[in-house]
């Protein structure tokens, strides 16, 4: 029966390919949404991760960067730097809002950097200087590609023009592209030249991060102190609500669609083979064997679809960001697991639904016909 099952399935290769492609396409849609969600989610906290700080210090009552406003006096940076156990500190002034680049507003994390805190600046450059001076800005390379601006062109930050001096890599995200400006310019805009927003602390080897957090809280008033993981997790929670959640909803919906397509393909395939299955029953095969054969065919089609989806995802989809640079895609194997898990019961149910009528058939009717 198993041999028959394989033989009939491969006797119509065009149908097999069409059915598997339909399944694969619906799977690819799910993988695409899932990859966008994970890619964007990763990118939203890219800056925080790249800073590689052990501890983040910010204004009391603030526990994230996204949609937040934090201001702490600059002397607090010096005070923290003097605490035993602190290896180094760097600090940034921060504002989130639109920056006009190439005639378009780009919602951005605007970071004001001082030369002595250059480590808080860009971590990968495509072109130009990494440290913006007064009246200068360093923007993501992706934005420059999208709107055609280049080094030397001007951008507008609220009420002032800044000249582009550098293009960064890995700083573009749907919810928060990172634009670096001088601390002087941002401080002037925010009327906070003697303030910072976030202080990044690195701990000396052998010093407990938890102990140092307690020391900072004790020594410096009106600040919130978080470990790197706490801060990133807190920021990710908020940032992901800024649009990535829609992608997550669409991933769930497209999984339902994929299940529907799998059900349709499986049902169609088996329904077409009812006559052959009925003959097999008349020839003495038991219901269990008939169900097994039909299920085998359905699983092969779905498995084939899943393999095709894997191939398309890791080739065509992975290549997509090269032509659409604003998309952050993270295609990972684990994204296929829920698909396979969701597809399996659907395959079983649809196959059983289609074969059920055959199982009820009286073999004699085949001969009478």
């Amino acid at each position, binding site marked *: 029966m198993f041999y028959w099952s394989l033989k009939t399935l491969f006797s119509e290769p065009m149908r097999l390919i069409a059915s598997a492609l339909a399944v694969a396409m619906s799977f690819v849609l799910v993988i695409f949404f899932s990859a966008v969600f994970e890619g964007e989610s990763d990118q939203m906290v890219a800056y925080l991760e790249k800073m590689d700080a052990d501890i983040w210090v910010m204004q009391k009552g603030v526990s*994230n960067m996204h949609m937040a406003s934090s201001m702490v006096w600059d002397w607090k940076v010096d005070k923290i730097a003097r605490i035993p156990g602190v290896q180094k500190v760097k600090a940034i002034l921060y504002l989130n809002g639109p920056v006009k680049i190439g005639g378009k507003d*780009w*919602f951005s994390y605007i970071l004001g950097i001082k030369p002595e805190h250059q480590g808080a600046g860009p971590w990968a450059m495509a072109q130009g200087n990494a440290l913006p001076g007064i009246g200068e800005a360093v923007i993501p390379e992706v934005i420059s590609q999208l709107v055609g601006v280049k080094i030397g062109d001007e951008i507008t930050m609220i009420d002032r023009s800044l000249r582009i001096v550098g293009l960064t890599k890995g700083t573009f995200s*749907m919810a928060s592209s990172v634009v670096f400006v001088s601390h002087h310019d941002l401080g002037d805009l925010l009327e906070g030249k003697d303030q910072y927003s976030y202080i990044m602390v690195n701990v000396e080897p052998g010093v407990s991060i938890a102990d140092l957090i307690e020391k900072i809280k004790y020594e410096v008033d009106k600040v919130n102190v978080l470990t790197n993981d706490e801060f990133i997790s807190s920021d990710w*929670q908020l940032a992901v609500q800024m*649009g990535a959640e*829609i992608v997550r909803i669409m991933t769930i*919906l497209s999984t339902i*669609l994929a299940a529907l397509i799998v059900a349709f393909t499986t049902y169609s395939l088996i329904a077409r083979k009812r006559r052959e299955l009925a003959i097999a029953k008349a020839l003495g095969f038991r219901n269990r064997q008939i169900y097994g054969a039909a299920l085998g065919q359905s699983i092969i089609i779905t498995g084939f679809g899943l393999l095709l989806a894997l191939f398309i995802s890791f080739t065509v989809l992975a290549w997509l960001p090269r032509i659409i640079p604003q*998309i952050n895609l993270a295609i990972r194997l684990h994204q296929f697991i829920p698909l396979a898990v969701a597809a399996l019961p659907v395959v079983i149910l649809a196959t059983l639904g289609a074969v059920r009528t055959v199982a009820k058939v009286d073999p004699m009717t085949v001969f009478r016909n």
Partner: protein
Amino acid sequence: MFKFIYRQLSYERPRTALTCVAIAGALAVILLLEGFQSGLLLQLKSVALNRGADLIVAQRGVSNFIASRSRLPQLSREKIEAINGVVVAHPITMVPVIYEKQGYRKSPVFFVVYDTRGGGGPSRIKTGKTASKPREIVIDESLAVLYDLNVGDAFIVADFEFRISAIAERASALFTAFAFIDYDDMIDFFFDSDLVGDINNLPLLSYLLVVLEPGADKGAIAKTIEEVESAADAFEPEQLAQNDVALGHTLFGPVMNVLIAAGYIVSLLVIGMIMFASVHARLRSLGVLKALGFSNRALIKGLLAESTIMILLSFPLAICFALLVARIIEASVPLYLVSITELVPMLRTFLAALVLGVLGAYLPYRLIARLDPAVVFRS
């Protein structure tokens, strides 16, 4: 031929129904993606338009109402109200805060601070009444649903306790819920909470909502405002709404467009494959028709008609699916507006489905053309 198509479709009703449901599902995904995009833009557009002003004054250089930090000088209100033709200039301040509640996720919230005796407050109240007593707050329905809050409940931000006086309808944009409070409460909030900490530049006045005398020339008064207050720019609400929509396009347009494009390509490929598989499965009966004298052209015409009928049957079902899912999303996460019934995206989806349905029916043309009627009789 139509009778044949009708018989063909009604011969295997469960299969026809399942095909319709599968096609409708694929189309519903596109409609939902389009609906998300339309909804996001509608929400952005309504923020400035719902403030009830003839002109909106912002900090010079700021050209958006949402997602911008605007700070106006305290005395600008007085200067602007002195201009001929201006009835009143209501102050409004936008303060971003983070709302947290034990056992729930945290959310960004925009405090819209307004004069409760003036304008700029919530445009639609679902339950309760606008704030009239100290520490009263009106929250958007998305916060009420997400955090299980009702009128009369406490709403605590940074250890400062507000009391919910009303739940507002559709008061959110850019994935952020709005909460409306009075100016006195804002000052108390800044000083009672630790937020004021090191800030020497409290956001006290973000925008002015200017109401003009009937018949006043908006353009001329906007120009006068910019002359009188050099630190400010004056906009008609429609202009600011347009700028916010443009910001929305820049912010999530690229990603949404790619998602929508992917939805179109994949869903329509699925439709094409379904149509192809359906035709391929019937090659034998098509061979019989060919043996009976039907030309290739007639057979293709029949398949095209069948494909069009399938799309026509599936599309209303797709709208129903999309509307149902949109209602479920809006009820469970009211932060999102999923606008399915926008005419242009709907027509676009319908036309694309028709085109792909037709292409799907054309795909097996070579199979039909090469089909030898004699094979039918031999088998």
